[in-house]
């Protein structure tokens, strides 16, 4: 399940309020979340996310448990989020909604091509190679199913 795309660099402690603001939560229209993702940080960012890999600082996704944050990133076209650490609810939400997340401390160069493999943990940025903490087999199964809903449907 290799993913690749140009890097988008973000800082540390990105909270879920910044990923998707509370005022946009009351809808089931997922495109609303994709349109307004990161709006209060950089309104132009949403349009640049399709096909990218986010490389962020520590504690990505802290704060509110809103699953819309993970969904918004996936709907906006983000292929993977790499950070040294994630807030645990966001981390579970990402796996459960089919957004690959990898725990790794690696440098970010805006726009530089990133090739990441959540199964092996291997991350290539240019000619540099990094290794993320590997995900458990169950997490990988959920991810490759496309999320926990699809995983459950397959199980039935």
């Amino acid at each position, binding site marked *: 399940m290799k993913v690749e795309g140009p890097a988008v660099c973000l800082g540390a402690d990105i909270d879920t*309020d*910044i990923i998707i603001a*509370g005022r946009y939560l*009351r809808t089931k229209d997922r495109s609303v979340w994709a349109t307004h993702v990161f709006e209060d940080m950089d309104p132009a960012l949403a349009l640049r996310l399709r096909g990218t890999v986010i490389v962020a600082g520590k504690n990505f996704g802290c704060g509110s448990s809103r699953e819309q944050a993970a969904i918004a990133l996936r709907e906006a076209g983000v292929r993977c989020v790499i950070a040294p650490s*994630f*807030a645990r609810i966001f981390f579970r939400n990402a796996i459960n909604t089919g957004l690959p997340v990898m725990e790794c401390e690696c440098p970010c160069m805006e726009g530089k091509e990133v090739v990441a493999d959540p199964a092996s943990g291997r991350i290539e940025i240019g000619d540099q190679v990094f290794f993320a903490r590997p995900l458990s087999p169950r997490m990988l199964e959920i991810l490759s199913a496309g999320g926990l809903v699809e995983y459950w449907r397959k199980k039935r």
Partner: protein
Amino acid sequence: MTTLSERILGAPAGSYVDCSVDRCYVHDGTGVLTLDAYKAMQAGRIARKDQTYVLFDHIVPANNSVTAGLQAELRRFAREQGLPFTDIGEGICHQVMGEGIALPGEIIVGADSHTCTLGAFGAFATGVGATDMAAIWADGGTWFRVPETIGIFFSGSLKEPAEAKDLALTYVSRLSMDGATYKALEFLGDGVQALSMDSRMTLANLAVETGAKAGLFYADRTTCSYLRDFGHSVSPQIPDETSYQQSLEIDMSDIIPVVAVPPRVDTIRPVEALEGLPLDQVFVGTCTNGRYSDLERFARIVRGKKVRVRTLVAPASRRVLARASVTGVLSWLVEAGCTILPPGCGPCLGAHQGVLGEGEVCLSTANRNFRNRMGVGGEIYLASPATAAASALAGALAVPEVPR
């Protein structure tokens, strides 16, 4: 020799465990997504209906027709399924669960990050997202990684006007916003026994602001006596001699009134250092500080005076509101010029009932001061109800006086 998390989850730190969940709950915000995911799973019936709660608190009453429609769908589902359900005006999910439902030793999962509040009762209580919750509806259980634990040892006692919120913000600043990521906090030491259940809920509530999965107190005489009033007979939990991955010692007599300055919960300053900071709004309430004792402390300070800035008060539950209306606290608030909101989360998450305008500053008793949370361009300072009261009277940040 185990930590309380290890004891409740039944395995040593670091293990992955599959556990059945004693109680699970969603609110009107996360419940909508949970219901969608649950339907998409086509999982059949809800595994444990009696323990699957739906509690409306986030945008209550509904602010527009979209919200109203989503709430109507969830309300209908809860009623059709016969789930324990509380509608608008009953209160914040964590508070309602803390009024005689959550019990020591239970595993409680809520679709809200502040579910850790119920660690005050000696339960392992943690937040999950909506899809995780849908799987719990279907299955009755979920997986956990048993967390390592940071022991927070309290000694001494709080000296007025400092209170539990100041202590909570102080431990968050000592640990930082990700200092306990993936871990649990345990609150221990001689200082704990003097803390009321309301104070313990405030302290456990802020655990997630350090990244923690849970924040636990051992049930003691205070817990047992609180739960006895709700008809439960429970036993104290005795801490084992165990070693903690990390320890933090805090002498409560050193605690002074503090504010968390925007946009980080872990960046605190003494209130004194920022005294005179002009305010546009004061907000008292939330799962952090909307309980009866919080409202009473605030009301005693503003009683017979007038607030000089718009002041919103949202009781955490109908029970809190009812008690305030009997004891006179409610009329003191109204006469002092406060605006009373229905029991619920109020403007904490910036969706309604007190959204900030560009450049406005709010002093709030809540738990998050992230950029733009209560409105684009608004700033949030976090403090205790006593600091909020002194500041509401001054129209600017002010140190509460020591009550005589």
